């Protein structure tokens, strides 16, 4: 089976800052990959290049067979980007729920507006996905009435409702109080078990150890190490990986 | 403001004491009184900072005021409050007297004292130069403009002008709608700008003549509708007694009538002699 996501020689500049340096990575179907790395190493930018929230400066992004060159322009490019976005679901650190819509409306907004799905069918699909994240009973609440953990779970349901081939998570638990982290991680674990392909930027080493098929370590816009979590935490090869793991430990955890 | 610290108990002494008389005039009433924008303030003037000097103003009223000042033996300075502040009385000593072509009316006499008239103007109706009206009656039901708080407005609204019936030659057109703008000049300019909110305006003949001379597309309609006695005015509520000042001003104006100085000024500014009382 071909990989779901294939990133080849991806370069990204912000002004003169070289943030991603000819980076390549593949994500196979049903694989869960955790990306770790210190702040500023380019983890978010990598995720955001995959669904073109940032336009890559150069390189090729291929998602589920759709191949897009970075740095292009024009209508065809826009169409390809749109297709890629339909194949990917993104979950942000800051949730980014639409505050003026109820929970259910948040979840069906994509299917109805973008996919032009029948409203009743979309509601069915939406309820199914809210069920999946354990929030059926909140369908008519507005987001401001939810806790952070609940918000993030709605955000996951919103992404799932688009039936993506791969889910991108950018530090989904960093904005949460410690006690709310668990409920979100549990939903993610469940997704992983269901066979969802996932690319997760996270500081949660426990989650990485338990769920990830592969852990990818980034530093300065490059992938410096990549292996199974057991191996990585026990015998890190790169000194930067070592430093990273030490830092988490000395953080008192 | 004017007034100043007055050790004197009457206004005339106060004026002589400070060395200038503060006269209110309208600064946008050509040719009676208007700014001399090229004139510069003399260095040795006694006038207060927010008053204008004789060098900065010009016009018929200005020359009369100047002559009055000379008769009192003091410098003449001009205050420029808006017209309705002058006619409303209660000047709280901000200026001494008005020389501003003010019409003597019974209403105004309740709050102001007047000198003897120094000239007389016919009030007329003017319309746009391409208008087809031929007489006053054609204006029935039309809108006509006048400066706010002027006798022209009072006449248009059918109010009591408060002067002798012999001076009133015509009644306002039937059902006329009155539009009052801040001054009569605004009426003229609105017509020149092409506004059609009203068809004509009432003002003094001198103003209409000046409008025509300045190239505004207006013309006089018919002959004069009434005649006004114009005089200097004093505030009845002044904290200082104005009796002696009024007497001095009356004396000065009478003298100017007598020796032809007023006639000269009138011909100079209006091109005709308006200083003879209408019969």
């Amino acid at each position, binding site marked *: 089976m071909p990989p779901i996501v294939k990133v080849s020689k991806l370069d990204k500049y912000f002004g003169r800052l070289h943030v991603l340096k000819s980076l390549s990575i593949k994500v196979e179907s049903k694989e869960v990959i955790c990306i770790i790395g210190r702040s500023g190493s380019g983890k978010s930018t990598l995720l955001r290049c995959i669904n073109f929230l940032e336009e890559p400066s150069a390189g090729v992004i291929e998602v589920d067979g759709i191949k897009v060159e970075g740095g292009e322009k024009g209508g065809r490019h826009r169409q390809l980007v749109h297709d890629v976005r339909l194949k990917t679901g993104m979950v*942000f650190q800051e949730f980014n729920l639409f505050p003026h819509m109820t929970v259910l409306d948040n979840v069906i907004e994509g299917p109805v507006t973008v996919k032009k799905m029948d409203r009743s069918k979309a509601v069915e699909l939406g309820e199914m996905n809210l069920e999946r994240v354990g929030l059926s009973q909140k369908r008519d609440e507005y987001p401001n009435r939810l806790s952070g953990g609940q918000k993030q779970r709605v955000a996951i349901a919103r992404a799932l409702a688009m039936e993506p081939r791969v889910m991108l998570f950018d530090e989904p638990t960093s904005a949460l109080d410690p006690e709310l982290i668990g409920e979100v991680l549990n939903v993610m674990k469940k997704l992983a078990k269901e066979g969802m392909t996932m690319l997760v930027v996270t500081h949660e080493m426990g989650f990485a150890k338990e769920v990830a098929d592969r852990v990818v370590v980034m530093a300065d816009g490059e992938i410096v190490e990549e292996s199974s979590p057991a191996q990585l935490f026990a015998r890190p090869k790169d000194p930067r990986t070592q430093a990273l793991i030490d830092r988490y430990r000395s953080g008192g955890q | 403001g004017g007034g100043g610290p007055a050790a004197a108990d009457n206004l005339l002494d106060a004026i002589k004491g400070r060395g200038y008389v503060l006269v209110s005039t309208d600064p946008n009433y050509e040719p009676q009184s208007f700014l001399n924008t090229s004139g510069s303030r003399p260095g040795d003037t006694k006038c207060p900072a927010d008053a204008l000097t004789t060098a900065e103003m010009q016009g018929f009223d200005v020359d009369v005021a100047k002559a009055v000042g000379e008769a009192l033996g003091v410098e003449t300075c001009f205050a420029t409050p808006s017209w309705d502040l002058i006619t409303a009385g209660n000047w709280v000593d901000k200026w001494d007297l008005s020389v501003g072509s003010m019409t003597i009316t019974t209403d105004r006499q309740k709050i102001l004292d007047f000198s003897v008239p120094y000239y007389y103007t016919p009030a007329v109706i003017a319309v746009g130069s391409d208008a087809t009206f031929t007489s006053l009656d054609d204006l029935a039901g039309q809108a006509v403009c006048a400066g706010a708080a002027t006798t022209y407005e009072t006449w248009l609204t059918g109010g009591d002008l408060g002067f002798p019936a012999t001076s009133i030659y015509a009644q306002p057109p039937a059902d006329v709608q009155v539009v009052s703008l*801040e001054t009569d000049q605004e009426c003229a300019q609105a017509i020149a700008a092409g506004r059609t909110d009203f068809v004509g305006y009432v003002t003094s003949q001198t103003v209409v003549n000046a409008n025509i001379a300045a190239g505004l597309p207006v013309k006089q309609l018919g002959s004069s509708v009434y005649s006004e006695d114009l005089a200097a005015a004093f505030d009845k509520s002044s904290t200082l007694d104005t009796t002696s000042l009024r007497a001095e001003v009356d004396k000065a104006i009478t003298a100017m009538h007598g020796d032809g100085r007023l006639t000269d000024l009138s011909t100079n500014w209006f091109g005709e002699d308006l200083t003879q009382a209408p019969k």
Partner: protein
Amino acid sequence: MHKGSGKVPLPFVSSAKGETPMSLSAAKRKTPSKSQSELIFEAQQRKERQFRSNVGLSWGLLLILLVFLFTGEKLNLGIKLIHLDWDFIRANIGFISSGVGVTFYLSILSIFLATLLALLAALGRLSIIPPIYALSTFYVSLIRGTPLFLQIFFFYLALPQVGINLSGLMAGVIALGLNYGAYMSEIFRAGLSSVGKGQREAAQAIGMTPTQTMTRIVLPQALRFAIPPTGNEFIAMTKDSALISATGFVHELMWRATKVGRAQFHSLEALIMAAVFYWMMTLVLSAVQSRIEARLSKGER
């Protein structure tokens, strides 16, 4: 314009919040010995109520003082108070008050025009097409760079020359609308930028086009954000509409006040009457606005 953000909540806000749970729990334990928490809570409530009523009292005193200023009394201190002619006031209050409706009507028309222009200007300001960006900034700069007073005269005198002959009311509405539109464009710009980048990105991420993102996600939030400041502008506009009186064609409050004041040599009384009406309008509109604001902030958001 009390927006209830001060220390003393507006009466209706506090009563809605505080009283109901209070009486509920008071009913539950109708025992003579109140809990310490009850006591402390009640002490706090009492203190707040007392502050509010003292403030109310002071307002009352200040109002009385203000009215007293106009009784024309001579004080022993050598200060003379202002004398008002109450007969004049009684005779003309009807004429002046009938300007309230005109002022309101004028302001309503103008705020609609202004809102439209402000939204267009704010969107233009976000445009990447240079002429549109330039037009929007040029409009805002020119209008905000010159006095409203002057603009009103200008529209009155200049438009007829290019053959556009508007009624006084319409000229006033256009002048006010154009002027407020330029100022309010900042409100809509703030509204648009209050919708965080995250919202746009979330919309993009589920595949929305820029147009869908704008109409479905950004504008609804921006407009809701803009409602309270637009309310403020409306209140300000009712007062700026007084400037329209200068053109003489719109018989709103100020026009009526200056008109009868001048004609009958009672400008002061006339102005005071107008001031009272403006103040009352402002207080009523502010109260309405507070309610709208409270609902918006409490409600669904």
